[in-house]
């Protein structure tokens, strides 16, 4: 087997054998062999073996940007439902302004949506933070749901796809790694066009030359590429955090975790 080759592995399938390999995410060691623990694409870089999931539910990782809804308010923070196994907790201290503990609802009320960063992932739950640029409460626009496994396609290489859509429609797009996409623009027509483009990407995510296909699609909608200057809106959320899940970025996050 060519070790550099990426291929789809199923649970219980041997990826490599040899004691020198280190089992990473999604794999385990069985004697001399490194075995896949889930369905995904095997990746052997150096001696580090891991499996990148290609299907299934969203599993939060540290550093991810997620979009969720407030489902509960405790005495010192908010619980956010983001579609994962457990809810994320956003403490008051992780909000970038002073909030009176008795008036948490004034700032974020039940049912309101937020863009937050995954600060820590434990088996008991997820801690979230809002303390950086690009995170905060969602006001206006629309949120659409896509499969979490399509998110890298929507973002594109180093955010290229997101930039392209923004340039064509003038709408701000925030892509949560949990598969929620927030679109906000100055008119509903533009927002709908943006949503159509995102839907097009999701439907055609497996074809080759996706970028060109999307360009054609955008032109088909009567929009011009890069015609709109992106104006930074003067709200809590100033610009969409971009291009998080590039391969390198992911590796780094994992390194931090260990």
């Amino acid at each position: 087997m060519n070790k550099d080759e990426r291929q789809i592995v199923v649970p219980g399938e041997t990826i490599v054998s040899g004691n020198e390999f280190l089992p990473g995410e999604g794999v385990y060691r069985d004697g001399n062999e490194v075995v896949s623990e889930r369905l995904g694409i095997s990746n052997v870089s150096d001696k580090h073996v891991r499996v990148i999931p290609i299907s299934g539910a969203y599993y939060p990782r540290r550093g991810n940007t997620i979009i969720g809804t407030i489902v509960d308010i405790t005495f010192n923070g908010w619980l956010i439902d983001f579609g994962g196994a457990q809810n994320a907790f956003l403490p008051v201290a992780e909000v970038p302004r002073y909030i009176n503990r008795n008036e948490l609802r004034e700032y974020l009320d039940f049912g309101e949506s937020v863009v937050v960063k995954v600060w820590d992932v434990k088996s008991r739950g997820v801690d979230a933070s809002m303390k950086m640029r690009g995170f905060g409460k969602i006001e206006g626009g629309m949120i659409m749901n896509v499969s979490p496994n399509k998110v890298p396609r929507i973002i594109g290489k180093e955010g290229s796809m997101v930039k392209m859509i923004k340039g064509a429609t003038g709408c701000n797009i925030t892509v949560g790694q949990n598969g929620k996409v927030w679109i906000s623009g100055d008119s509903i027509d533009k927002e709908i066009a943006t949503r159509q483009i995102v839907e097009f990407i999701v439907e055609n995510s497996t074809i080759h030359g996706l970028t060109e296909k999307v360009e054609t699609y955008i032109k088909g909608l009567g929009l011009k590429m890069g015609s709109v200057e992106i104006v930074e809106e003067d709200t809590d959320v100033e610009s969409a955090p971009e291009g998080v899940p590039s391969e390198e970025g992911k590796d780094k996050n994992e390194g931090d975790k260990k």
Partner: protein
Amino acid sequence: MAGKGVYTKRNDGRKFDEVREMSAKVGIVDSADGSASFNTGHTKAIAVVRGPRTLHPQHMQNPRKGILRVNYGMMPFSVTDRIRPGPNRRSEEISKVTEWALNSVVDLSEFPNTVVDVFIQIPQADAGTRVAGINAAAIALAHAGIPMKEMVSAIGVGKIDKTLVVDLDKYEDSDFHDAEGSTDIPVAITSRTKNISLLQLDGKISVSEFKDCVKNAKVACEEILKVQMEALKNVNGESN
């Protein structure tokens, strides 16, 4: 394996150790986290996986690890007589043994207080529905990205009169009453360690014949595993 008894030729012309034609498909329900269908002959099974998600009621939660919850059911039109929908003695039993068969391979220690729901439905039944259900459920669990040490494949083996057979159909399983009658043994075998995770027996059989049956099952499960892996590898990159 040719029999000395009255059952010298199979009803549908198969060899005694031949498995019915199989097919499997992944991703049949878009809204689910994982889904699959598995067909053997006229038996069809579909499985849908949802989760891990928070388990309610809270008192059922396990703070050490997530739990697996299997629900098996036959659709009202799956057999010639109508089946009354809803849980019954038989479906409760099958749900439970399927849960045990799958529990030995899934690893939910990363998801305490959560549940992974597996729903198995049988749209068309021609014996061997529980093993078809397990085969479909194993594919669906893998598709849902649930951590699994290995896969599970299951097959019904047995004895018709004095002849050992593999993959019994409805006629062999419940309509054959001549001479010694029929015995069926559903077996589930894990893909890597080759452990048996389900073993039931309905009928009479000698110890040596029983051992031969289990050997036959192990051979047949290899074939089933190929079908399961083939389906999973053709999941088309990112379809969900």
